[in-house]
């Protein structure tokens, strides 16, 4: 069996890639993909720990996370669509009519 630390390292690496993507990408769709990476990093943890602890709580919760990630993308794509209609772009820095 692969030791649990390896899974933790893998998920930490994927999480870091996701954070990097969020910080550097200006395209809203790439931002969404990066968020998916973050959520799936958590899923890897949940499934690996579920096996480690010998209960199914983590695996079941990872299904919930998948479903909610899909719902979040559905709302997000809708918002990005109206963003495109209003600003003619999906660049998140374009929408800056209000000061930060």
């Amino acid at each position, binding site marked *: 069996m692969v030791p649990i630390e390896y899974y933790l390292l893998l998920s930490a690496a994927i999480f870091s890639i996701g954070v990097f993507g969020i910080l550097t990408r200006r395209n809203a769709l790439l931002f969404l993909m990066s968020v998916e990476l973050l959520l799936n990093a958590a899923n890897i943890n949940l499934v690996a*720990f579920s096996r*480690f602890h010998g*209960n199914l709580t983590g695996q079941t919760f990872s299904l919930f996370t998948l479903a909610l990630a899909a719902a979040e993308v559905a709302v*997000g794509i809708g918002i990005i669509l109206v963003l495109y209609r209003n600003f003619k772009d999906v660049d998140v820095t374009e929408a800056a009519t209000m000061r930060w």
Partner: protein
Amino acid sequence: MAFQLPTWMALGPTLVLGLTALLLLVFDSIEPDTTNRGLLAGTAALGSLAAVGLSAWYLVAGTGEEPISLYQNTVVVDTMTLFFGLVFASVTALVVVASYDYMRDHSYQAEYYALVMLAATGMTLMAAANSLAVVFVSLELSSLPSFALVAILKKNRGSVEAGLKYFLIGALSSAIFVYGVSLVYGVTGSLLLPEVASGVADTNLTGVLGIGVMMILGGFAYKTASVPFHFWAPEAYEGAPAPVAAFLSSASKAAGFAVAFRVLTVAFPVEELVTGAAGSVDWVLAAQILAVVTMTLGNFAAATQDEVKRMLAYSSIGHAGYVLIALASLSGGSDQFVLAGGMAHLLVYGFMNTGAFLFIALAEYWSVGRTFEDYNGLATKAPFASVAMTVFLFSLAGLPPFGGFMSKYFLFAGAVRAGFWWLAAIGAINSALSLYYYSRVVKAIWIEDPSGDFDIESKPVGLYTAIVAAAVVTVLLLPGFGSVWQFATDAAAALVA
């Protein structure tokens, strides 16, 4: 009592709100192009008032005194659940009644009210969550409709921009939250809060646990609009339709605190993690830092604003900082008192802040303009609403004859009792500063001469009803604060007795 309700009825407020949302969608599928605003708004208002009634009835009848555990202990109904259920349902009722006028030209009426009700359902469930899985699901159930609500004015650039920023920060922070949950699960092997607490007690993986707890704290900071995840709030509140801004800044913030109170006190007990022998994950210290930074930043930023709505947005960040004092003063020995202070303040805040944002909604309805100068002399045209707004603002500032004074007083007194007098001192200084920018609005409304002509011919019934109701409750909460305090103390006892 002569008869006994089935135990699942303890979730009555949540069920009523959820069923109302589904009923509204049924109306919409029968007649998608309906212009019958009265039916839709009326259904939503009845549903939320029924939830108010149920919560109040359960509270008075003492339903939650013995916590009722449901669904294998993943959901628990105690006094705190009902207390916050009352707050969320009241704010929802006010917002729905005000939306009847504000959203009059909007083409997707049923969807709007259904989204509001769904978000309210998620909030009431947040106050009942006893498992990290339920916390996450209910958090998303209240967040996802809120994203859509902020961006609901599809052709308004401000609304879309606000929705985008709210969504981006929300997606990021919920991902961080769920990663934190996965780490905590890895350390403790369970998602149920009481089992997490026992797992926390006998672990030596404090490093992983600490990262997990801090990430979970980040998720709560987003929901409550606290530093470091606060910067969506001014944008979202400014761009969103004003009733939605009222809903988010009052109910959504209270929901974030409700769930934060329960998760932090039940799953990560102070005596184990902070002051205990193995004390290593000092989340109370983190809450202290966040409380000071949040209230200072919120109040100073509010003092520099030119637009009334944006000023209220920053002031709502400042109020998140005040309530964080309740978390920051734990471990001081009077946990029940400080938590009750936080909860009582959230209830009073729910009415006065909703009312203030609904006055903005009224001003937007009349196309008055957004800056302080635009409000000059508004009292000459709308004296009645202006009196209500004055009540809200002075209550928010914490001046004596209103409900906001009592709740803030008890909140700061709790901090002093717990030995954190410096937190109370910083809070008091910030309150004094807040009086400056609140009275700027009052001065503009009452003292300044009108700069231009107001085009006010209509008196919208719904908006007026909601504003007057909120004002009456804000005033009545001063004499009625005794019973609020009683319920808040009972609610806090459910967590830290």
